[in-house]
């Protein structure tokens, strides 16, 4: 077992995990942050997307011990208290989910994408969100929601 200390959603946390525990399982099973979802557990769906220092990564293919000392943001950490993140509000406004299982990963991925600042057109947003699958087919709403927030971001 290894002690790891890292920052999760702005708070210092310490967990004791075996080296083979994924960051996804450490978040869900050890820190009880169950917002991050396990879809495939093999890097193929994006449901487990979290941010590591603003960069979107897959927590299912990350060993928790390799994130010692780093800063992780999960879906539980994106709102400002009771105030939703603009993307969360936009997802509600655009019906950007049905079952909601892919939603935490979609939101973290979208935040990472806006931070990268590479996507200009709707086509580019679609391409750069292709690492997040939605089995309910809410993709049109998801892209609509992101496009709306992207507009306000670039007008600021």
């Amino acid at each position, binding site marked *: 077992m290894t002690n790891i200390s890292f920052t999760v959603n702005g708070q210092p946390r310490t967990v004791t995990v075996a080296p083979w525990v*994924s960051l996804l399982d450490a978040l869900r099973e050890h820190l009880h942050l169950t917002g991050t979802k396990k879809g495939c557990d093999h890097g193929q769906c994006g449901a487990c997307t979290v941010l590591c220092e603003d960069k*979107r990564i897959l927590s299912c*293919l990350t060993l928790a011990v390799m994130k010692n000392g780093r800063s992780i943001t999960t879906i539980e950490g994106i709102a400002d208290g009771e105030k939703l993140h603009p993307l969360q509000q936009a997802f509600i406004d655009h019906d950007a989910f049905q079952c909601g299982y892919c939603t935490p990963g979609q939101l973290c991925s979208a935040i990472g994408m806006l931070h990268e600042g590479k996507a200009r057109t709707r086509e580019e947003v679609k391409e750069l969100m292709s690492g*997040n699958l939605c089995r309910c087919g809410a993709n049109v709403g998801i892209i609509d929601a992101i496009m709306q927030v992207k507009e306000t971001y670039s007008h600021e």
Partner: protein
Amino acid sequence: MKPFTLRKPNDIKQALSGKKAGEAYIAGGTNLVDLMKKHIAEPDALLDVTTALSAGIETSSRGIRIGAMVRNSHIASHAAIQSQYPLLAKAILAGASPQIRNMASTAGNLLQRTRCPYFYDITLPCNKRKPGSGCGALEGENRMSAIVGYSEHCVAVHPSDMCVALAALDASVVVSGSGGKSESIPFASFHRLPGTTPEIDNNLPVNALITAVEIPANAFHKHYAYLKVRDRTSYAFALVSVAAALQLSGTKITAARLASGGVAHKPWRWHEAEKFLQGKEATAANFSQAAAIAARSTKPLSHNGYKVTMLQGAIETALHNCLNA
């Protein structure tokens, strides 16, 4: 996963001297962790090389040196890569997903293992995973398999997009062996053909580390294209991919590079087609002829004949796209 321990060497020396048989290096983990979850890789210990190896990109008049730990996304967005080696950026952005590219390292991309479905299912025969057990794909589900360079022992393809561009650009792989000696392996002789030993993917010496990849300075930054054909528009491995690059003097081709992914056990260069293009006019007829020359050297399996037509079309289109890049 089989239980294992994990250590984190501080530098290359520690990483080399500390590694024992049955242990593995880990970088981004995007391939190795997956293989460990599926019990295809079962190392006793992992050596985390994320600190020991360089994550920097250095440019000089002779070319560019990309540290083994540079993440794929960083290469693709690097200014010098975009201006001088844009083919590489294009190929990287055609691979995996943004999340995976943020994690994946340069070295790990070179060493990623095949996506052959038999390799991935430990209940099925596969010479690459279990030498001597037979090749399930040879007479089985080989829609995704090779059309050139294979043997009866293995018909798998190398899954990387980045490596196709590196092959086209005559890159070399800088490795450090256990004696601490550094050597440079030309890209063309880094990955291997399956022959009778498909369990060995490449010529990286046992226990050696990849420390960097170098690309010599070139003038292929004006006319280039990376075309990837896949089952869906994004986030899928290549059925066939083509990296094409031309140097032109007016409308005359003074140098040509053509490489493909999804067709062989290693990133494949179409040397004969390149030679044909050299000195020719950049016309549709010549592009079509070059594609036919490449296609002629292939030999499809029972379920992948479609790849030959696809390859021929992809080469033609990629060469056309070079003119509009």
